[in-house]
């Protein structure tokens, strides 16, 4: 056995290369897929970088996601534990409280429902491409394509006016910025929550055909809870797919052979999207859970109260599960990746995200077969300071 490297003090965030998780995480995975890590508050918890171990923890309801139990793996979010939970923010609840909210929403996000949205997503995508053509190159692909498509779709689904995007895109950016102070995050949450709560009150008087109105009419949740559910879905619905589209396009532009497959072979697109999800793993940090009782994982005994932080990026590159996982190969069987999570909190909107990406990537590449970066690759500003990784901007020509 090689001598163990010193215990990691907090979770590494710096990605040495645009598309790879921090090298430190790969080194740790090679050493031990589950190992001790010191947390920002001095707590002695765990770091999980192996696929099998991460998947087992995500599937195990003996690990809690409740904020009051959490320890932060990074110094920037050390004080957040004491923040009161926004009503209806079910991603931070355990079963059965979580189940109640999720059940009210799952019928809206089924594979069939999302399939029915395809014509509308295509229409939105084509209209963004038309606008890019009209306005001409160069363009920032994030602003003109990657962000508007999922923002428009989630606004229509929820019943949030797209004209208000300035507000929610700004507040989301503050929330996800790991360098925001607790005061800034608190203000952004309050601002966005008040906005959504106001919208819910309006929908109670004048219902429209959308998810927020449906929740009001259902009568099972208070307006406060619906406001919190709306907050969660609005952030989750646009920041994630937007960053997959931006970062995914960047990755394809630097891998022309892979790009050609996505552009030219419609049968390859479904799997290509799974592979991009696996390879890019845009959840930049965590998730973090807390053991509610003593649990053994991968030969390690995690004691009740101890924190575990998973690296989805490191787990998705684990050679035990994905051979040659550090290479982007849109033809590899990529199913089973952990980019949408696993267990009861697995992404509610994942089938929507798939539809959006399956439509948007090939449409973009076919409309602009000569699409290319307008700056050298190393000058593309990366989102290393954000909870969701990606590109801040992607200047392109065609």
């Amino acid at each position: 056995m090689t001598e163990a490297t010193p215990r990691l003090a907090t979770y590494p965030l710096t990605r040495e290369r645009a598309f790879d998780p921090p090298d430190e995480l790969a080194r740790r995975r090679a050493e031990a897929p589950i190992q001790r890590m010191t947390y920002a508050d001095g707590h002695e918890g765990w770091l999980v970088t192996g696929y099998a171990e991460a998947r087992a923890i995500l599937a195990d309801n003996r690990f809690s996601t409740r904020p009051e139990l959490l320890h932060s793996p990074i110094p920037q979010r050390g004080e957040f534990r004491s923040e009161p939970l926004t009503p209806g923010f079910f991603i931070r609840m355990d079963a059965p409280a979580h189940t109640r909210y999720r059940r009210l929403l799952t019928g809206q996000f089924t594979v069939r429902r999302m399939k029915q949205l395809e014509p509308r997503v295509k229409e939105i995508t084509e209209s963004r491409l038309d606008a890019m053509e009209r306005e001409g190159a160069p363009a920032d692909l994030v602003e003109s394509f990657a962000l508007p498509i999922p923002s428009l779709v989630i606004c229509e689904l929820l019943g949030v006016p797209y004209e208000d995007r300035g507000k929610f895109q700004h507040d989301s950016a503050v929330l996800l910025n790991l360098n925001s102070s607790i005061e800034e995050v608190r203000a952004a949450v309050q601002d966005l929550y008040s906005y959504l709560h106001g919208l819910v009150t309006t929908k109670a008087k004048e219902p429209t055909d959308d998810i927020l109105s449906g929740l009001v009419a259902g009568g099972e949740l208070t307006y406060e809870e619906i406001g919190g559910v709306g907050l969660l879905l609005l952030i989750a619905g646009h920041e994630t797919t937007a960053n997959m589209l931006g970062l995914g396009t960047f990755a394809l532009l630097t891998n022309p052979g892979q790009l050609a497959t996505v552009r030219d072979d419609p049968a390859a697109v479904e799997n290509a999207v799974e592979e991009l999800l696996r390879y890019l793993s845009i959840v930049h940090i965590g998730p973090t859970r807390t053991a509610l009782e003593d649990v053994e994982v991968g030969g390690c005994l995690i004691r009740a109260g101890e924190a575990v932080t998973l690296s989805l990026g490191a787990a998705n590159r684990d050679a035990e599960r994905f051979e040659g996982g550090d290479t982007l190969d849109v033809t590899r069987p990529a199913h089973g990746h952990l980019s949408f999570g696993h267990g009861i909190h697995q992404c509610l909107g994942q089938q929507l995200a798939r539809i959006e990406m399956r439509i948007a990537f090939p449409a973009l590449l076919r409309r602009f077969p000569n699409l290319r970066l307008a700056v050298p690759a190393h000058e593309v500003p990366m989102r290393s300071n954000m909870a969701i990784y990606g590109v801040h901007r992607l200047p392109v020509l065609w």
Partner: protein
Amino acid sequence: MKIKADTGRCIGAGMCVLTLPRVFDQSEDDGTVVVLDAEPPADLEPGVKRAVQLCPSGALSVEE
């Protein structure tokens, strides 16, 4: 092979429908799993096994 689905555990992620729509569907009401064919033909066995494996909530199992 007989498929068993626990709708109490199901969280409506839709992975089974995505994997094998000939065998799995989702309730219009709450998105939970609906098994269309609980004893599918042998040629669908690999797909069923993959759906069971991908299910995030452990709601699906098969009896040989």
